[in-house]
């Protein structure tokens, strides 16, 4: 981790007569907080882009006469939070999207939720808002009632303006919001010629549940429960990121055993999801043998999670100040035995899949996401790693206990479905190694530190590597230890746009396997 680039950035900005001011923000550390003038917001993104910083997250907050706007940047494992304020009465701000295509939807989300207008945004269409609130309403403004202002049934959203294709033989396929299988809802609009996809446009937001709004006024425990349900498949990681943010805001040190148990649960979550999804990808290319084998392994894995930690997904086991589950020595041994038994099985099964021509034929070169496209969107997790970008918070910006561990990160340049599957299979084996180390050196300590009510206005940032990639969660406390602002940035924001691009020139029947190989969270994105 090196923050040397921040000085370079400040120097380059100063040369343009743009001056950032560093502010003390202990809860955001190790990230550093800088404030900027509203008019300089575009120049800031221009220079961070020139320095090849990653655009990590953007979020706003109603602060009365002003709306506070934040963007998080990262480079070399060091994070910078840039902040500016726009007048509530005149909420205009230069967009970051011209420099970072990945900022497109986050900015439109802010526009829909807080009523900030991004002046040179290339696509001012609404994003998260469908028909549940009016254009003039902004759910995240404090004067908007949590119950909303609409009565009666919500009309279907049939006025969203999709891109339109014309020409001989071009046809459209509208899919969703309810999809064919047991999966989350969203809308996909394909334009195709014959079997070939010309373009895919996503319309998400169907699972928007008002998470950011209903977080307000909760206590720390209540926020952890909500964070556990931002995306059920990532319950451990989201709860960890939210608790880390709250603990930093409150200045609480988490006991060593609790940190180890969090990491054990987080690695178990990673393995469970990777196993399940590898099986699903194989199912989508009609290799049902692989599907049944991997779903069997996933089930075995989840059963031991339940036996050892009391829940198949370990939901609500990460709590403010520590954890709400302990691991007996006997269960730690059972976990190690399971790993020892599964490791050769996975190697064997991946060998079989690799040797099966029909699988290879369907996965290799399918759904190619070019490294430069992945970079433009800041693609995280296995999607980034399969397309040349190996950012992994456990290694690049390590948090305890990963600061004590060596985390290997597989990276490929092929960018296809096969590469994404390969990264995931390797990550399973790497997680096995990490689990072995964590289980053999599990320290003795209390499981939970006493909670201390943070001062009003205290803020915190939690950064955790979930199985999908880096989660960045912002929390601010108001009076009486109640939450004033919660924003969890799921890594899916960075990969949904990749799906749109990777499907081009593929055949329509390959869409399910491309989608599964990326497996963005709808719920984690729609909030």
């Amino acid at each position, binding site marked *: 981790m090196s923050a040397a680039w921040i000085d370079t950035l400040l120097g380059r900005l100063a040369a343009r007569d743009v001056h950032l001011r560093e502010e003390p923000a202990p809860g955001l550390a190790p990230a550093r907080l800088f404030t900027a003038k509203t008019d300089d917001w575009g120049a800031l993104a221009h220079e961070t882009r020139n320095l090849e910083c990653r655009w990590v997250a953007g979020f706003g907050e109603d602060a009365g006469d002003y709306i506070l706007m934040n963007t998080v940047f990262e480079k070399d494992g060091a994070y910078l939070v840039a902040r500016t304020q726009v007048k509530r009465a005149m909420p205009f701000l230069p967009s970051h999207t011209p420099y970072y295509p990945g900022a497109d939807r986050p900015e439109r989300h802010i526009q829909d939720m807080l009523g900030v207008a991004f002046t040179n945004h290339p696509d001012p269409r609404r994003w998260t808002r*469908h028909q549940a609130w009016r254009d003039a309403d902004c759910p995240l403004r404090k004067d908007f009632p949590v119950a909303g202002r609409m009565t009666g049934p*919500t009309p*279907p959203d049939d006025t969203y303006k999709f891109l339109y294709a014309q020409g001989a033989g071009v046809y459209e396929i509208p899919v969703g919001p309810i999809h064919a299988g047991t999966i989350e809802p969203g809308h996909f609009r394909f334009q195709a010629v014959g079997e070939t996809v010309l373009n895919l446009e996503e319309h998400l937001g169907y699972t928007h*549940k008002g998470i950011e709004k209903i977080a307000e006024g909760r206590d720390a425990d209540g926020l952890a*429960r*909500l964070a556990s*349900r931002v995306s059920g*498949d990532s319950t451990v990681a989201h709860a960890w990121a939210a608790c880390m943010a709250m603990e930093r805001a409150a200045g609480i040190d988490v006991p060593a055993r609790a940190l180890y148990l969090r990491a054990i649960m987080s690695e178990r979550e990673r393995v469970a999801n990777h196993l399940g999804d590898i099986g699903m990808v194989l199912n989508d290319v009609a290799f049902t043998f692989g599907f049944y084998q991997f779903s069997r392994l996933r*089930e075995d894995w989840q059963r031991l999670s339940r036996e050892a930690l009391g829940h198949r997904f370990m939901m609500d086991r990460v709590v403010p100040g520590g954890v709400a589950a302990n691991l007996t020595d006997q269960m730690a041994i059972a976990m190690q035995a399971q790993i020892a038994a599964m490791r050769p099985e996975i190697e064997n099964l991946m060998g079989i899949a690799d040797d099966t021509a029909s699988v290879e034929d369907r996965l290799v070169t399918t759904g190619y996401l070019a490294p430069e496209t992945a970079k433009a969107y800041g693609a995280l997790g296995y999607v980034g790693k399969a397309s040349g970008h190996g950012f992994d918070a456990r290694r690049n910006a390590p948090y305890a206990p990963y600061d004590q561990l060596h985390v290997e990160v597989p990276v490929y340049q092929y960018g296809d479905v096969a590469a994404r599957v390969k990264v995931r299979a390797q990550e399973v084996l790497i997680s096995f190694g990490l689990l072995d180390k964590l289980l053999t050196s599990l320290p003795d300590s209390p499981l939970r530190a006493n909670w201390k009510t943070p001062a009003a206005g205290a803020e915190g940032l939690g950064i955790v590597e979930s199985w999908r990639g880096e989660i960045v969660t912002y929390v601010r406390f108001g009076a009486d230890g109640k939450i004033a602002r919660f924003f969890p940035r799921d890594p899916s924001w960075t990969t949904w746009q990749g799906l749109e691009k990777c499907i081009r020139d593929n055949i329509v029947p390959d869409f399910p396997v491309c989608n599964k190989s990326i497996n963005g969270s709808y719920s984690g994105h729609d909030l």
Partner: protein
Amino acid sequence: MLRILAKIQKIGIVTEPLPKIDEPVLQQVGEQLKAKVGELFGGSLAIRQVDAGSCNGCELEINALGNPYYGIERFGVHFVASPRHADMLLVTGPVSRHMEAALKRAYDATPEPKLVIAVGECGACGGEFGVSYASCGAVANVVPVDGVIRGCPPTPLDLMRGILEAIGKFQAKRP
């Protein structure tokens, strides 16, 4: 191919026996389910699952019903792509307001007589999300519901039990 066959032979059928936790009852629940499905649905119960705004936790457990441990298809239960082919809707929620119209359309498209089960704490009562500008809360706030399966998320076995219980009510609904 030989390696595949070797693997299949080595693993065998994992569906039975099931010694861990609460699974000794799986076979029992499964057999009852099969008998009821045989009696009431000609041996085949078609379910359309609708995620009306869930966190995806419930979906993972519903998907687990298809893994070789539970293998719910062996009891005559299968998941279909269209509500028009379904006897039952298995709905997770809270129902987001953005899914309200889609859920109603799926309900209307399901032929009578039909059964609707609300799955999970969220489907049953709104769960952590409740009712807000963005959420209608419980499934019953949007479409008529015949049964609920609680849990966050309900385990695959809870789901099987809940389905069994709900089809018991189907008798009453039949013309």
